[in-house]
């Protein structure tokens, strides 16, 4: 393996890709679309106002009433006054059907007119990130408006965010590693299967066979490209998950091994599938047969732990499961030992498939 040849081939891959607007659009925009789509559908954000339980400890001062009616006027929230004990507020919220709450503290009006900092408390629901995010946004908007009126923008009213209940991880938190896994699987699988079959049909492999470029070098340059795509996609998904839905995931170096071994596995598998097939049509078929079960049953869109027992067992034979589970261990549970185990499985598999792909794919097939 000569780095200079890998680099030269990588340049061709990158240029071909960047000059293909459709491919570019899909790899940059698609991750955001996926996050937004699944985040919205399954986090249950609707257009109707979100009920919010409000405890006003400022004795219904004029300023607090103004604040709440401004909040009501946003149409994002529907205020429901409650008269609960403050120390039990969180617990009572947890038993309520609509567990999002707001507490206006005692002295709110006095502090506000004296231009002293004061915090309202928003209790958000970890199981409903979308609604929680919407309510937080509305309260923040009204606070900003009040701050602007009183002091030209410096922060007087701030928000203190707390969580209701004990469940820490929400759907969106699981969705991020799942969808990163989804793109680690799909973007190399679909295009490598196609590349393998069409380059052979068009005679490009025979053309390359007449140069010193080796098959291992060729496959490596493609792996490097999809690894790069994976890093960018993961960045976009984490970024949009956090910004759009307030996802709370750990982004650590522990993620890196999966963003390397995952693409290595699926670039090689795509090449292998494309090589054993005789025609582009059968290549696409083989690719789909391999890809589709993994696409849905490896914890991509829903955590595997929510599956029925039989399906959970099936998930454990899917390579993508170990990629996604490993990223869950890193990003959610901070379980390094289990992540290392998952990584071992993925890496070993990737090496085996890489070697098989190089054995089976021939440049100069007649």
């Amino acid at each position, binding site marked *: 393996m000569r780095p200079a040849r890998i680099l030269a*081939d990588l*340049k061709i891959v990158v*240029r*071909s890709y960047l000059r293909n607007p459709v491919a570019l659009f899909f790899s940059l925009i698609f991750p955001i679309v996926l996050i937004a789509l699944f985040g919205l559908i399954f986090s249950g954000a609707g257009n109707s106002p979100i009920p919010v339980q409000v405890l006003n400890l400022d004795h219904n001062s004029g300023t607090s009433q103004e604040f709440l009616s401004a909040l009501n006027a946003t149409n994002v929230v529907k205020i429901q006054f409650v008269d609960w004990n403050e120390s039990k507020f969180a617990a009572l919220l947890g038993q309520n059907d609509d567990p999002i709450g707001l507490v206006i503290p005692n002295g709110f009006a006095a502090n506000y007119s004296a231009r002293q900092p004061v915090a309202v408390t928003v209790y958000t629901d970890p199981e409903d990130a979308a609604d929680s995010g919407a309510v937080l946004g509305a309260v923040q908007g009204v606070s900003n408006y009040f701050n602007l009126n009183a002091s030209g923008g410096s922060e007087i009213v701030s928000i203190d965010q707390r969580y209701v209940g004990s469940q820490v991880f929400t759907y969106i938190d699981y969705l991020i590693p799942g969808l990163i896994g989804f793109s680690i699987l799909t973007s190399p699988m679909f295009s490598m299967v196609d590349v393998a079959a069409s380059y052979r049909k068009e*005679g*490009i492999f025979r*053309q390359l*066979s*007449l*140069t010193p470029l080796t098959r291992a070098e060729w496959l490596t340059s493609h792996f490097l490209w999809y690894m790069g795509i994976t890093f960018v996609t993961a960045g976009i998904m984490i970024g949009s998950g956090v910004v759009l839905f307030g996802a709370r995931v750990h982004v650590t170096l522990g993620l890196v091994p999966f963003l390397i071994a995952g693409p290595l596995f699926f670039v090689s598998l795509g090449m292998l599938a494309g090589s054993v097939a005789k025609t582009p049509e059968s290549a696409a078929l083989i690719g789909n047969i391999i890809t589709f079960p993994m696409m849905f049953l490896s914890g991509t869109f829903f955590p595997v732990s929510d599956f029925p027992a039989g399906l959970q067992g099936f998930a454990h034979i899917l390579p993508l499961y170990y990629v996604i589970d490993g990223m869950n261990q890193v990003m959610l549970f901070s379980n390094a030992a289990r992540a290392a185990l998952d990584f071992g499985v993925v890496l070993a598999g990737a090496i085996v498939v890489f070697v098989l792909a190089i054995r089976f794919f021939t440049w100069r097939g007649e």
Partner: protein
Amino acid sequence: MADAIEVRHLVKRYGNLAAVDDVSFTVRAGTVFSFLGPNGAGKTTTVEILEGLRRATSGEVRALGLDPWTEAAALHRRVGVIPQDFRFFEKITPREAIEYYGSLFGHRPHPDELLARVQLEDKAHSRFDTLSGGQKQKLGLALALTNDPEICFLDEPTTGLDPTARRAIWDVIRSLKSEGRSVFLTTHYLEEAELLADRVAIIHHGRIIAEGTPPEIIAAHGRPERLRFAAAPALADYLRPRLGLAVSAADGRVEVELGAPSDALRVLSAVAASGVPWASFATAQDTLEDVFVRLVGQMDDGTLKAEGTT
């Protein structure tokens, strides 16, 4: 001088079909050798076996002393290839393609010089999928030259090109020879073989039916030189019993085949003595094209067997 290519009793079968059927020939280093044959003759099959892209069913093949199939990597560093119907990455420009090949071969050719050499400078920055057929073929030629090859294999490099592009490619092929490279050229254009090749092999149905320099092939397979008169068939009737030469009449023309150049004088005296009026006369000689058309036709009729395998 050593032989660039040596082929002995080469056979390539696809099922029952012998695409190449016991073919033998030698290409001397530094010469242009042309495989001339109609579509389906077995040209591509032969050339791709020489390039190490296909495996021979039987027979012995050597290029630069190497076995093309088992020693392909070593061979590919020293030869340049333009396949029939050359294709490349669609979004890549000729300049990038040459730089790419340069990096792969570890040679550093000057892209601009190579592009100028194949007259493609003005398309240096156009993507491959926007090039015309002739421009694509020129890029193929430039790529085949990036590694300073000892043999160039050109499989029908000018098929389907306009006359200007064809001439440009011919110029490059001539320059390859003048630089001492060997060239293996397949074509179904007679003119091309006649103009460029030192030696020509006519191939049909996987067999070589004639081989040599164009004059040698004409001498071996052409009809003798002829005297042709514009005259009535009566002239033929007069000459036939008197000359002992083959005489034919058709379309207001009478042709006499000459056994030796000196026969011409005897024929002319006999014509003068005949008293039959004639308008003009000329000498007629077979071209490579006449030979080609006749040999291919005879082989299709089954009246011709392939030449011995030497």
